């Protein structure tokens, strides 16, 4: 007896998470065409490996593949970014997509730039937690790091954001506390 074909399993397991994959790729590459290439490559890999997928969260599984494809892409094209210090000036000035025109507010743009400027290792855990709402365990699986590292990177990412000019007023209030 043969099971469902790879392409029907792909449609069932991967396609529902295409937005999640694209959003993640977009935040990792910070560019629309590059994110499209990365997701397309990730889909090709997912289709190839789909026979090995059993049961766990399809979302986390696909996001892990997107991450690998994005890191391969970054290594080939912008290997400097993977060696930690992402420069703030490097953030692509993204032209507004239709959905962005509707959604974006002035503060949102600044906050988005602050997030885009985070080193990729911090950026990815923050996006997975705050936009994809994954648990620590799922983030650990996607980013291939221990849960303890998820916690410390999240803390660091949040601290960096809170110190960004966008959130200065809050930062000062917080800095005053702590007894």
């Amino acid at each position: 007896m043969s099971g469902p074909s790879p392409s029907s399993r792909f449609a069932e397991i991967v396609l529902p998470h295409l937005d999640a994959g694209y959003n993640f790729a977009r935040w990792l590459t910070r560019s629309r065409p590059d994110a499209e290439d990365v997701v397309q490559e990730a889909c090709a890999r997912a289709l190839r490996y789909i026979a090995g997928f059993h049961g766990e969260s399809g979302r986390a599984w696909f996001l892990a593949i997107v991450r690998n494809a994005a890191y391969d892409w970054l290594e080939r094209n912008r290997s400097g970014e993977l060696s930690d210090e992402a420069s703030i000036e490097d953030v692509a000035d993204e032209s507004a997509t239709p959905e962005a025109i509707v959604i974006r507010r002035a503060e949102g743009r600044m906050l988005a730039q602050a997030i885009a400027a985070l080193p990729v290792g911090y950026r990815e855990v923050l996006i997975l937690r705050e936009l994809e709402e994954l648990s620590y365990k799922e983030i650990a699986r996607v980013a291939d790091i221990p849960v303890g590292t998820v916690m410390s990177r999240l803390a660091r990412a949040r601290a960096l954001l809170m110190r960004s000019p966008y959130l200065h007023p809050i930062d000062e209030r917080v800095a005053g506390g702590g007894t």
Partner: protein
Amino acid sequence: MNCQESPELLALYCDGELGALRAASVERHLHACTACATRHDAFLGLRADIRENVVYHTAPPGLRRRVSSPEDHVLRRSAILAGAAMGCAATVLALVLASVTIDYRETSSVRHQAVARHVDATLADRLVAVASEDRHTVKPWLTARLDFAPPVKDLAGEGFALVGARVDALDGRDVAALVYRYRDHRIGVFVRPRDGRDTEPELLAERGFNVVQVRRGRMEWWVVSDLNAPQLRDFAAALARDG
């Protein structure tokens, strides 16, 4: 709880990673300690800012189309595809942009109303006039009060529990307002008859809520929630699915 360890505990608490007992102990501490309460506020403020203001990039239609029939497209050599894909994506973007501009005024007004009605009903604690998770109770209740029969789906199997419904108004017309629950998220669903071609679920946002509009078989759904965008889109697609 000791303030020395509180930043770490606080993060675990805010991320929903603590068990009930430890969460309760953090809550007690937050009532007693202003410094930690301020940190907690800053934490939630940052999260709200991110979720409300930062764009969730949904997959462009061209990409979705290309990967939706994988044998035909994805496995071909990516170098060839990348060039074609970008041209194709640009065309699609231009088309989408044009139709968005045309539809924008009408759409934005209904979207605005849908979010406002959902927020009002939530704040006034009158989300549902008939509370039932049984669609065979909810649907007749609505049909008796409206001049159309709104589809009411049972999506409990996919994690979306029906909470109930009320009659509300959009654009000066009575509509069905269904309420579903997904974990801690409430989802407001407005259903009204609508002529015109079927559309794929379209994601919009307003005042920090995700909004999805979809049309199918002369019905239109407006779905409003603080649930994350992809899940809300899946939910809207399931609502509008046949059968």
